[in-house]
């Protein structure tokens, strides 16, 4: 097996930081994983269907110079994550050769190595040692890391009590203080509030100015444009373009716009808890929405979004939410080819009455904006059940407390009675 000449500080004179030579990586998609002995014995008796092979990356060749910032662009499923995992040795290539010179630090997921029960302090040292840093080396950096993460007050608290922002800030602070010669970043600039984002960005600029090589992965082309001189464009595991970032970003945006989307919405229906189609719904009940999509297998779902919007009779926008479609959606038996079903549910629809229009829109990202691919609507009537005595379009849990709340020393007194009027 060809293996990395990693972390070899004696070879630092070389001008190349990372080199990929004809690297391919194959994954085997097994429909039935032989993950237990039982499966394995059954497998011996009954030959299984052929395992499906999937090339996440094919024949990738490029190199990154020392001190350069390179962007990796591509949609979900294009092979970006696989590329990073190969670069950081989490995965091995199926064929080809990867040569890296210098200490690599990867920010694939901030705080990946944190143990929830340990304090922030212990986690800093544990994380440092995951990258081969000694206790002494971490001692030298500890104060800087903590002050960068702005966690002075909480550093001795177990990280399970940290907010997600604190968690990420600590992970980010550790990463930028490890003096990485090569820093691999997977869309982690969006950490914390905007002040911390600026600080993070400046820290990365400082590292870059200090001669670190930076590999920056994002599907946000503008972030890449502001940071990297050169970029790589990945499409379906192949390297489609490499060159100055401006050109590659333009190429990427053009590609997104030109792509013909072959998908449509077949049907939108309102359903209840038991998946029965309905045209009326009692006020306050759960509303389900079932959408049938025609989505041919070749069509990538990664740039597709589905939007769900509710409007009242006057066209007032009551609710809206856009979600990315997952990488794969199951086909449904019995329906036509390429038909897929997705369902949404709205718990306890807080509407009192009236018709509601449910609009489902299929969209795709196009450069900075989105295009509508298809749109369908359906309308249901809300029955004002249990709404006697109230007016208006919303169903709200409401009550009057007729008496002043009891003070603390009255707590044991049985005489306090609250007269309540509630809608339920």
């Amino acid at each position, binding site marked *: *097996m060809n293996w990395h000449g990693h972390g070899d500080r004696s070879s630092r004179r070389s001008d190349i930081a990372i080199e990929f030579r004809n690297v391919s990586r194959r*994954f085997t998609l097994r429909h039935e994983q*032989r*993950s*237990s*002995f*039982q499966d*394995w014995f059954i497998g011996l008796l009954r030959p299984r269907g052929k395992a499906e092979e999937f090339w996440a990356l094919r024949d990738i060749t490029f190199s990154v110079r020392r001190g350069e910032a390179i962007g990796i662009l591509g949609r979900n499923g294009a092979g970006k994550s696989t590329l990073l*995992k190969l670069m*950081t*040795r*989490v*995965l*091995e290539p199926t064929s080809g050769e990867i040569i890296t010179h210098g200490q*690599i630090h*990867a920010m*694939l*997921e901030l705080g*990946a*190595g944190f*143990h929830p*029960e*340990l304090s922030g302090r*212990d986690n800093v*040292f*544990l994380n*440092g*040692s*995951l*990258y*081969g*840093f*000694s*206790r002494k080396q*971490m001692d030298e950096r500890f104060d800087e890391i903590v002050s960068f993460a702005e966690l002075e007050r909480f550093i001795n608290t177990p990280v399970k009590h940290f907010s997600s922002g604190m968690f990420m800030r600590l992970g980010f602070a550790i990463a930028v203080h490890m003096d990485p010669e090569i820093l691999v970043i997977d869309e982690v600039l969006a950490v914390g509030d905007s002040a911390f984002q600026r600080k993070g960005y400046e820290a990365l600029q400082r590292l870059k100015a200090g001669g670190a090589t930076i590999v920056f992965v994002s599907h946000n082309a503008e972030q890449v444009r502001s940071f990297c001189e050169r970029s790589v464009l990945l499409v379906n595991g192949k390297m489609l373009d490499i060159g100055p970032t401006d050109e590659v970003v333009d190429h990427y945006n053009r590609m997104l716009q030109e792509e013909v989307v072959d998908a449509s919405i077949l049907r939108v229906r309102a359903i209840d808890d038991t998946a029965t189609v309905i045209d009326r719904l009692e006020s306050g009940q759960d509303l389900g929405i079932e959408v049938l999509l025609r989505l041919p297998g070749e069509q990538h779902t990664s740039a597709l979004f589905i939007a769900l919007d509710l409007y009242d009779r006057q066209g007032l926008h009551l609710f809206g939410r856009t979600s990315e479609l997952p990488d794969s959606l199951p086909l449904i038996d019995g329906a036509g080819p390429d038909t897929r079903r997705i369902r949404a549910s709205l718990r306890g629809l807080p509407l009192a009455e009236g018709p509601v229009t449910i609009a489902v829109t299929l969209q795709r990202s196009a450069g900075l904006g989105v295009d509508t691919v298809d749109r369908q609507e359906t309308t249901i009537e809300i029955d004002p059940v249990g709404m006697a005595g109230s007016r208006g379009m919303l169903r709200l849990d409401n009550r009057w407390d007729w008496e002043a709340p009891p003070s603390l020393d009255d707590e044991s007194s049985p005489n306090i009675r609250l007269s309540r009027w509630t809608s339920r």
Partner: protein
Amino acid sequence: MASQAIEAIRYRALIRNLVTKDLKVRYKNSALGFLWSLLNPLLMMVVFTFVFTQILNQNIPKFPVFVLVALLPWNWAAASITLGCSALIDNRALITKVYFPRILLPISIVCSTMVNFILSLPALFLIMVVFHVGFTPWVLYIPVIVLVQAIFLTALVMFLAPLNVYFRDTVVLVEVGLTAWFFMTPVFYPIEAVAPNLTAWMYRINPMAAIVAEYRTILYHGGVPDPLFMARTGATAVVMLVLSYFFFNRLNRNIGEQL
């Protein structure tokens, strides 16, 4: 192989931190914390003593010392095998996100359970004093046995941890296996109670029998260990370690994908 050894040395702080992490996490959420390391084997000793001297009317003098001297190393073996078996699976978040020598995960389990074993030794020494069992200078030989046992356990765990990634029910089989193994190891009975023609075989196929017998010879009988005896067990352990090292590296290549 040499480069891997150098790498392991570079990452020595990781072993230390993983071991402290294991110990800290283990004692964090219990009121008695570290005291359990001492109390658990003592309670087990009380149970065994009651069963074997009161119910079964066994005639082994100073039975508490007799059983505890074997129970402690056995507990170390059982704990490191159980925990080591899932060492890779439990750390999947780490393995799929960060590169580090993954072989350190099973190694750190053996180390942290070993620390636990060593911390429980004072309980044994206390019981020995209470029952007037004398110490001989051969106590100084104990570290050699500990080392042999550590090598043996590392070999086992290095074999089981990656196997468990591919066959998730390894851990269940290991559980059953451990129970069987416990009865096949002279922990609560003397090796002399085994049919004479089987004794040699027991030592041959079960390194734990040899290891446990050696602890007992030194600490309970106050006898003199036979150096050749431990040398044989040690050689077996080293051969196993080399084999499972290659096995681990072979399976390690696809673990990132399998997890």
